[in-house]
């Protein structure tokens, strides 16, 4: 196992995290008033509907995806911006999608919850908890038939381990020795419910091991720890066996952007905020001999890139209403209402 990345790779990890953070912050701003939920009312917003932010969880996406090739595949969750960015999607086309623009990755048909960039192997966020797991299993089967050692990474949350597809998918992957890394990105909150209060037994990793998918735990706020663990596990995955990474992190924001999460204990919450993964990463990377100025420059570049993405999204046109009838199906498509 490699203990630490070299300076260049460490900077790349930091850059991914900074880009995710900047993207999430800008998306959050653009989403206020975008959905009537959690006491918030609907008003004008560019980013509409529920927006699930991965703020504070950047280290998991960055640390895992740093090991991936373009030809590896990935499935994600409703909280999927970070994974999408880390797999290589472009911020402007992502922001366009969040703004519902025709130039978005999904032509404005998916939005945040279905963000995808197939051109970099990102097979989609998902609006249904745990539903990415079977899809990832099928994709891994397809890769297996193709030969080679490309792998699938399947991100899911702590809430997903209480749904059936977790059992079904891991069992299947183990029986078939599929090249798939399951990553439980455990932010410890399932909407407004603390996941621990509704989850029996010893948790995600113990369940996976019981099914025959071994793995390890990582500090999901420590990008180097995630990077080390994911690297070691992915080497085993590429050799032909499924593995499980349980990355424990913390959901900094509410369930959706308009959720102020008043149901959480303020003192505990503030304690968690002290472990900002970007701050931790900066300290660790400086310790590897990288100058702080370099990190600060990366932060500024990320901000500028996101600002440009937001400007592009503002300027881009909405889809033509006729597009509502396209990409539905070939057989039986059309305006079946008149």
């Amino acid at each position, binding site marked *: 196992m490699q203990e630490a990345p070299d300076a260049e790779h460490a900077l790349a990890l930091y850059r991914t995290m900074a880009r995710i953070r900047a993207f999430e912050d800008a998306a959050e701003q653009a989403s206020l008033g975008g959905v009537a939920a959690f006491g918030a009312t609907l008003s004008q917003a560019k980013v509409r509907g529920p927006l699930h932010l991965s703020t504070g969880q950047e280290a998991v996406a960055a640390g895992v995806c740093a090991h991936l090739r373009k030809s590896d595949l990935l499935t994600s969750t409703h909280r999927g911006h970070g994974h999408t960015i880390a797999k290589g999607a472009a911020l402007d086309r992502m922001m366009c999608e969040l703004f519902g623009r025709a130039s978005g990755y999904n032509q404005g*048909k*998916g939005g945040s919850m279905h963000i995808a960039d197939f051109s970099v192997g990102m*097979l989609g966020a998902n609006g249904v908890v745990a539903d990415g797991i079977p*899809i990832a299993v099928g994709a891994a089967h397809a890769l297996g038939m193709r030969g080679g050692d490309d792998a699938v990474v399947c991100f899911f949350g702590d809430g997903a381990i209480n749904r059936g597809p977790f059992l079904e998918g891991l069992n299947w992957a183990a029986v078939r020795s599929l090249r798939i890394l399951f990553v439980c990105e455990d932010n410890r909150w399932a909407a407004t419910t603390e996941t621990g209060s509704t989850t029996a037994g010893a948790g995600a990793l113990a369940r996976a091991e019981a099914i025959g998918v071994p793995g390890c735990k990582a500090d999901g706020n420590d990008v180097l720890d995630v990077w080390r663990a994911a690297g070691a596990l992915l080497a085993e995955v590429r050799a032909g066996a499924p593995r499980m990474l349980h990355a424990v992190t913390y959901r900094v924001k509410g369930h959706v952007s308009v959720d102020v999460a008043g149901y959480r204990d303020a003192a505990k919450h503030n304690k968690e905020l002290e472990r900002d993964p970007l701050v931790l990463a900066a300290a660790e990377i400086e310790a590897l001999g990288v100058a702080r100025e370099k990190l600060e420059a990366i932060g500024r570049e990320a901000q500028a890139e996101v600002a440009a993405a937001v400007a592009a999204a503002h300027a881009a046109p909405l889809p033509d209403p006729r597009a509502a009838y396209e990409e*539905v199906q070939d057989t*039986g498509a059309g305006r079946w209402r008149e």
Partner: protein
Amino acid sequence: MSYARAACAALEDAMRADERVVVLGEDVGRGGVFGQYRGLAPAFGAERVIDTPISESTILGAAVGMALAGLKPVVEMRVVDFALCAIDELVNQAAKARYMFGGQGRAAMVARLPNGLWSGSAAQHSQSLEAWFAHIPGLVVVAPATPQDNFSLLNASLACGDPVVYLEHKELWGMEDEVDVARAVPLGKAETIRAGKDVTVVTWSRTRHAALAAADLAARQGISLEVIDLRTLWPWDRDAVLASAGRTGRVLIAHEAVQVAGFGAEIAAVLAEHTDARVKRLGAPRIPVGYATTLEDESRIAPQAIAAAGIELAQRPRR
């Protein structure tokens, strides 16, 4: 050739022609419980004829992943009733993937969900749920009633780039008839299997055979039934039905599914919107299918009932 063998033959051809075609589901390695996969595992191996655990969500969900990654999966769900364990994957994932992702990927697959009343199998193995699927944008819904159609429509479904819900009938597996493997049947095309002048009977799946028998019964009483087998429920052949309704002025829709909110309601509504035809529906009562023969029979759509409904409709004056 039997109805089961006809499907198997179509699948065999497709697997030979295109190595991306794979089969996945419970028991497919041993030919499937109805023999509709017999011979495929020895011919194509366990990697392409994939035995799965009893994990319906993951069978269908994995098929979505396979399709997005470039394979063409054929999904075995045993019976439509069990496919309800995978309804989320079918409705929320397979049907919507292409649209949601803005055309970046599509979940082209054939999901085989044997449909209909299965004698002696009671409430959880006897449902006809075609209307559920016809309601979902993104899905194609096919319901073959003969060996020929099972061969030709499975062929067409395998060639189709959309997710297809393929509803073979649970009790037609053993039906024998001639199959012309050169004959193509396009999706969305009905077949007029009996010409008539008094009443149009629109039907599909096994009820096609009951309707044909009903046409014989009605003919003995001087009533001429025209029988149309829709064969594909989405898209359904509106032109054929409207044209026939224009000739007869009377349409009876007969299906095995529960009549309330069945697919017949959609056809009846379209007829009401576009024609002056007199319309009648004949579906099952809104009860679960019972086990005892006397109870089960209450859910059956018998030829006598179709004939009686047709004759009754024929008595009403044309509008």
